[in-house]
Each structure stands twice: as structure tokens, then as C-alpha cells.
């Protein structure tokens, strides 16, 4: 073994370990949380529950239809729009920007809800 090789090898292992560590860690978000908690909204009895859900930027909200009637999830500002969801079907949307997102069911418009992203 040459002297150069030994020098490279003594650096290589810690370097490799460092790279592995960096590759494995989650990207740090704008907030000081290391992960983004997602939320679930249950659709039941022609209503969204909870009616208002608050999530951090980057979170994914999943709506699950527990009614025996189909519903949709449609943002009033055109930000997101689900296909019709029958019983047990889901719709998810990931919120990448802060803000208040009002939405409703386009089939039963009295059903309204809000996602607050902060």
C-alpha cells in the first residue's frame, strides 16, 4: 500500500459515513419541525369533520368518504378539485403554500370546510 492510498482510506470511511448520514436525513422544512404532520378529514352525514383543520406548510390533507352517498372536495378558489368520491374513496392534496383554503362539496354545496395552512 502506498502512502497516498493510506491517506485516502483514512478519510474515505468517515467521508462515506458522513455522506450516508446526510443522504438519510429528511430535508429541513421552513419550520423547525423535522417532519410535516398530515391530517385527515372524515366526510360523514353530509359534513366535513373537522370542518376546519390546521396544518403546517407541506402537509398533506386526506379526505375519506364515510357516507353512503358520493361527495367531492372542491376549493372555492380553484386550487384543488377532486373527482367524485364514493363510499370509502379518498382524496389527498399537499399544501405547499401558507393560507386559508375554503372548499365545499360541489354536489351538496351546503357542505363546506376550511384548511388553514401556517
Amino acid at each position, binding site marked *: 500500500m502506498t502512502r497516498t492510498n493510506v491517506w485516502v482510506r483514512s478519510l474515505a470511511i468517515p467521508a462515506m459515513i458522513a455522506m450516508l448520514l446526510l443522504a438519510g436525513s429528511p430535508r429541513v422544512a421552513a419550520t423547525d419541525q423535522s417532519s410535516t404532520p398530515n391530517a385527515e378529514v372524515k366526510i360523514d352525514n*353530509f359534513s366535513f369533520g373537522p370542518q376546519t383543520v390546521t396544518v403546517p406548510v407541506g402537509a398533506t390533507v386526506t379526505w375519506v368518504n364515510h357516507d*353512503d352517498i358520493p361527495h367531492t372536495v372542491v376549493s372555492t378558489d380553484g386550487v384543488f378539485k377532486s373527482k*367524485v368520491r364514493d363510499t370509502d374513496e379518498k382524496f389527498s392534496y399537499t399544501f405547499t403554500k401558507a393560507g386559508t383554503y375554503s372548499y365545499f362539496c360541489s*354536489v351538496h354545496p351546503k357542505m*363546506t370546510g376550511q384548511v388553514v395552512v401556517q
Partner: protein
Amino acid sequence: MRGKKQGLIDQKLQDLNNDGVDRRGFLKCMAWAGTGLVWTLNGGIPGSRAFAKTAERSAAKGADFTFVQISDSHIGFNKPANPDVTATLQTAISKINAMPHTPDFIIHTGDLSQLSKPSEFDTLDQSLKGASAKQIYFVPGEHDMLSDNGEQYLERYGKGTKGTGYYSFDHKGVHFVGLVNVANLKAGGMGSLGHEQLEWLEDDLNGRSASTPIVLFAHIPLWTIYPDWGWGTDDSEQALSYVKRFGSVTVLNGHIHQIMQKVEGKVSFHTAMSTAFPQPAPGTAPSAGPMKVPADQLQRVLGITDVNYVVSGHSLAIVDSPLDTSVSSASENGSGSSLLRLAR
């Protein structure tokens, strides 16, 4: 709610019937009849009499024509409230076919399908092919608009219609208008006709003689029954202002899966039962969703509506009958009592 107005209606009812039975006594008798209720309109004043099979024949004889309203078939629905909506639709069609007179046409007031799927519309069409009446008029329900802007519905049933699927036609001197109040619904709102359709309606009615009987039909009720559940149309008042001058106006709706009736001046409102599943009375359940009833009672809360028109007398008789027409006892709270509810 009693009061002067109610007393006046009772008085007029007594004059019309002339049979010694006042309104309250009639309602008690009605619970025994079980078959159906005939509402007659004569210049806007309601009259009623019990309806038995023989009476139906004579009602039809005096009528210039008859048609049938069916509604809310929800083909594709398969939950416990009714696991086989195609079968109950078939029962409704058989009932129409068993009528002593073939109706001139059928009006379907919407929610043909459950999910706007082509297979669901196919099944509906297949079933209706077996109906004695070959002419069928449709208006969509919100369940028929689930593919973008209701394109599946319009492709099949939208020929000759305007905008979201509205249209009008004349039949033996009566002017029929099919309205669409299930498109472009706004968050927090109820049914909606929209500016374009209202303009078209005003134009469509313009110039017609006030003695022309008018029949408006749309899916969601054109009067406010229960806003919390979306049972009403936000801009129907404007539409109703256009028909105010006519001598006889009938409004036929669906959507609520139960019978409700109201008379306001010369306008009579009527909602039909569904052929698929019943829904709860306003505010009696957490939501308006499908209501489960014991299996042997299902066919008593589903039904069709037979409309008999006597043009010369400007009178129209609306007969609601459940799919199961076995005589019910007075103690049963089936469709018999719901036929008699009048919003005041």
C-alpha cells in the same frame, strides 16, 4: 297553523266536495284508503278526494291527457337502504304499464344515476325501454352532473336542450318547461338556476296567453323546504315571478325522496317519491342521506306520480301512489300521511 287563511281554504274545500265530509274528516278517512290521494286544482283552489282504483279510471276518462312523473332512480346505488334500485325501478315501470290508460309520456325529475357512469345510464335506458309510454322527458339531478359539467348526461339526454340542459315543449295546449338547477352550484348555497337560464325562461314565457297551463319541472325543489339540507333553489323566486301571471302553474320536483305539496295562489308545488330509497323528513335525522326502512316497508315509501289533466276545466289531478299499494291501516305512518302534508 290555523287562522283566517286556513279557514278560508277549508270553506272552499267544503264547497267543492259537497259531500258532507270536512277537511279534517277527510284526512282521517284518507288514512284508510292507502292507495293514493287525488289533488285537484280548479283555478288555484285545492280540492281533494280519496282515490280508489275505479276512480282512477274515471279520472282518466275525464282527463284530456295523463302523464307520469318518476324521480330519483339512482341507478348504481347499492347500499343497505336499497341493494337493488334497478328492481324497484322495474316495479315502478310495471306499475305504469298496469295503468288502464297509457300515459302520454313520462317525466323523470332527475338523479337518473348514482355516479353519472355510462353503465348506469345504460341500465336506466334499458329499463325504460319496457315502459308503455315511449316518450320520456328528463332533467338532471346533481348525481347526473358528476362527470365534467354533466357531459355524460347531456350526450344522452341533452338533444335539443340549451345551456345546462333546459328546454320547453307544448303538449295539448299545456306548456312544459324542464329546468336545470343542479349545475354550477356555489359553496354554501342550495340549487341554482343561473342568470342565463332565467333570461331564457323569461323569454320563453313571454307572449304566451295567461290561460296557458304551465308545468315547470326541475330536480331540486323550486321552493324552500329545508335550507340546512339544501332543499331549495336560491334564485327560484325570480323564475316564479315569470309565471305569476298565468292562471294555472304546476311545479314538479324530486330530490328529497318524499312527497311534499304546497299551494300558493295559482301555483301548486309537488315533490315526488323516489323509485330507489326514501330520505328522512326535514330535521328528523343527522343528514338527508338514504333512510333505511324494514325491507317489507320499502315499497310503501317508493312510488310514482300520475298527473291527470283536464284542459277545459283548467284542472289538474296529481295522484301519488306507492309501489306497494296494499291497504294500510290508520295506525301506519306510511306514505299515506305524508301525502297530506301541506306547507303553510
